[in-house]
């Protein structure tokens, strides 16, 4: 077992496009829950809409990259409107149930065999990233950390998107608009009595967080060049919540750092466990079970975080969306 290599692998997780995607999707959840108090349990659905919106329009309708991107964003906005209209006037747990149901509906629809020709069913879709790859400005060769020019390119783009979104969210939340949102989170009726249209503010927050989710779906799929429906189950949403609560829900940096910690810890435990199993130090579990053990730990971590440090690593206890 090579401890140095295991640590390097864990550090490498900090910058992968998947980490960026988790960070961005959790940032969307921060806009929803941390800043506006909206319980979105369907972020996986938003990611799926983004990923499939792009993949289907690219493969089926041969649209250029930028149009595919726009379609993904518009589709996610429409999805947010569709969810928001019936539920934003109701109590918070209704939004939770409706969003989780809607995300599952999306997953069932992209999984069904009936739509095999469009969605590829459970196999998913692939090879929709070709045009994206042609934009690669970096010449072939080996870059830092031994990345190929494509590795380097997808990382640069992914993190550029994440940083840009983080700056936008930060600016939004310190604007008057953001203060109204936080006000809604603290006391909806107080804000309403000031003459603000609470419903409309909530809807805007839902759409913005949903768009971040859709972009995260793109960061999740374009680098790997394929999209499979099994990746967008409710577990993904729950992992994103863990990431969000790990970092701090009412912060901009929190979700991003949360994603880095999440993936580094997952990689560390996986490699340590399989190292121990291979070296014969641990004999009572198999490598497959080691993978499941990590997710048991994720669940326990989520419970412990919620009980002992609901504000996360960076958060401020006064800024919790729940008291």
């Amino acid at each position, binding site marked *: 077992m090579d401890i140095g290599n295991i640590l390097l692998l864990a550090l490498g997780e900090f910058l992968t496009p998947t980490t960026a995607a988790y960070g961005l999707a959790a940032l969307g959840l921060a806009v929803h829950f941390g800043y506006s108090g909206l319980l979105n349990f369907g972020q996986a659905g938003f990611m799926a809409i983004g990923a499939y919106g792009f993949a289907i329009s690219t493969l089926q309708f041969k649209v250029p990259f930028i149009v595919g991107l726009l379609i993904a964003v518009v589709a996610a906005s429409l999805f947010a409107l569709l969810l928001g209209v019936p539920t934003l006037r109701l*109590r918070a747990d209704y939004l939770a149930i409706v969003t989780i149901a809607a995300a599952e509906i999306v997953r069932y*629809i992209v999984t069904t065999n009936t739509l095999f020709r469009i969605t590829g069913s459970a196999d998913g879709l692939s090879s929709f990233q070709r045009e994206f790859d042609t934009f690669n400005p970096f010449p072939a060769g080996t870059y830092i950390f031994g990345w190929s020019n494509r590795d380097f390119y997808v990382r640069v783009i992914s993190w550029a998107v994440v940083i840009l979104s983080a700056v936008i969210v930060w600016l939004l939340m310190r604007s008057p608009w953001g203060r109204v949102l936080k006000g809604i989170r603290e006391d*909806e009726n107080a804000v309403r009595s000031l003459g603000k249209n609470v419903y409309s503010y909530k809807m805007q927050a839902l759409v913005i967080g949903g768009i971040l989710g859709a972009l995260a779906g793109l960061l999740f799929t374009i680098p790997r060049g394929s999209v499979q429906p099994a990746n967008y189950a409710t577990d993904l949403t729950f992992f994103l*919540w863990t990431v969000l609560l790990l970092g701090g829900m009412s912060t901009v940096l929190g979700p991003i750092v949360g994603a880095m910690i999440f993936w580094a810890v997952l990689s560390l435990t996986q490699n340590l466990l399989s190292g121990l199993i291979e070296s014969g130090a641990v004999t009572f579990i198999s490598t497959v079970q080691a993978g*499941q053990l990590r997710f048991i730990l994720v*669940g*326990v971590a989520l419970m412990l975080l919620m009980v002992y440090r609901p504000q996360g690593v960076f958060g401020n206890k006064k800024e919790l969306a*729940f008291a």
Partner: protein
Amino acid sequence: MQSTPRGPSKRGSTGIRKVTGAIFAVLLAVLMIAAPAAQATTPSPSPSPSPTTFQNNISGFLRDDARTPIPGVRIKATGNGFEGTATSSANGQWSIGVPVQGTYKVELDTSTLPQGIKLAEGQENPRNVTFSQTSNLSVIFAFGKGIVVQQQDLGQSILNRLVAGISFGLLLALASVGLSLIFGTTGLTNFAHGEMVTLGALALFAFNAWGVPFWLAVILALTGGAAFGYVQDLALWRPLRRRGMALVPMMIVSIGLALAVRYAYQFFFGGATQQLPGAQVTDVQIGPISVSPNTLWSLLISAVVIAAVGIVLLRTRLGKATRAVADNPALAAASGIDVDRVIRIVWVVGGLLAALGGVLWAYYRPGVTWDMGSQILLAIFAGVTLGGLGTVFGALIGSLVVGIFIELTSLVLPPDLKYVGALVVMIVVLLFRPQGILGRRERVG
């Protein structure tokens, strides 16, 4: 957001230690109950051996439309100057190692399919598949019922689906009554309820595999479900209520619990589908209705149990107390009802009913898997929401509607979309009658 902390007293480090201990105690309890399953099953599915091991694999699972594995089917992959074959194993898995990534022609030998099963319409065979940057390429073959002996007329299939739907709806109701009672008395939306459903089936399978006689195994499994509910409340939820934790954080704690418990099940049970004794039976013909006897038994058992729960709720002191707590905990406490005791009983009964629902669900599908409860969690939620959050009889009616609706829509929708209809209906109902069928308006918003 409205959150009403229920226990005003904040306790310091004792509370904290209690909760940590609690979380592990709950997990430990789950592990102990799930442990027998580990010995009973082979933990990981073993793919059929391919002659040489290559880095790249074309693989898949063969399952029929009821998701039962189809073993012993030959599949051939040719391409890039290579030819490989595989036979699906007992759990339906097959895998062919190939030397290079690229495009392959995959052909399923239809003559090796068991009788009564054929490829679903529109399934290309042979078909060309291409690797996309990953070393594993999964190929899905969808199956349908093969030779249908006689064409059923529409009225008859509606009748069949209706009976199946009532049976399914009642088993959903078993789980949702517990969920609804817990929501009503504590305000918790319990996302770990699906795992309580799974526990019943897993425990029954484990005890049975251990050689415990069937009826004893059933009783033990149900006791396990009740114990799980009791331990959860005692060790986790009650300390959290005492700390004055708000409802949304509690909901998120329940998600964490659901994840931990579900993967703990998979850790011990593995990913395979197992069958309970007597799960695979042929349909019987009763008048115009053709139905599996298990479905009928399930219908009967759940109807009796639910009627009993209803009578207890309406006629006994305990039931009255429960309804009072659900209505207004503070007022109930003021009038001398021991709220904590009522909540504890609700958790025990909820766990028991969920476990029974899980056993019946394992016969209805049929099959036992580690995630079977979370598969119907949303259908349970749909039933509870449809009937009105927190109303017990609403949950019952809502679940019946959802069960019947899911089965009836399967006449028009493809089987892999059958849950979609129910979820859509739930969202639409929220649009027009957010308080649900039996809910009261002031509960909402």
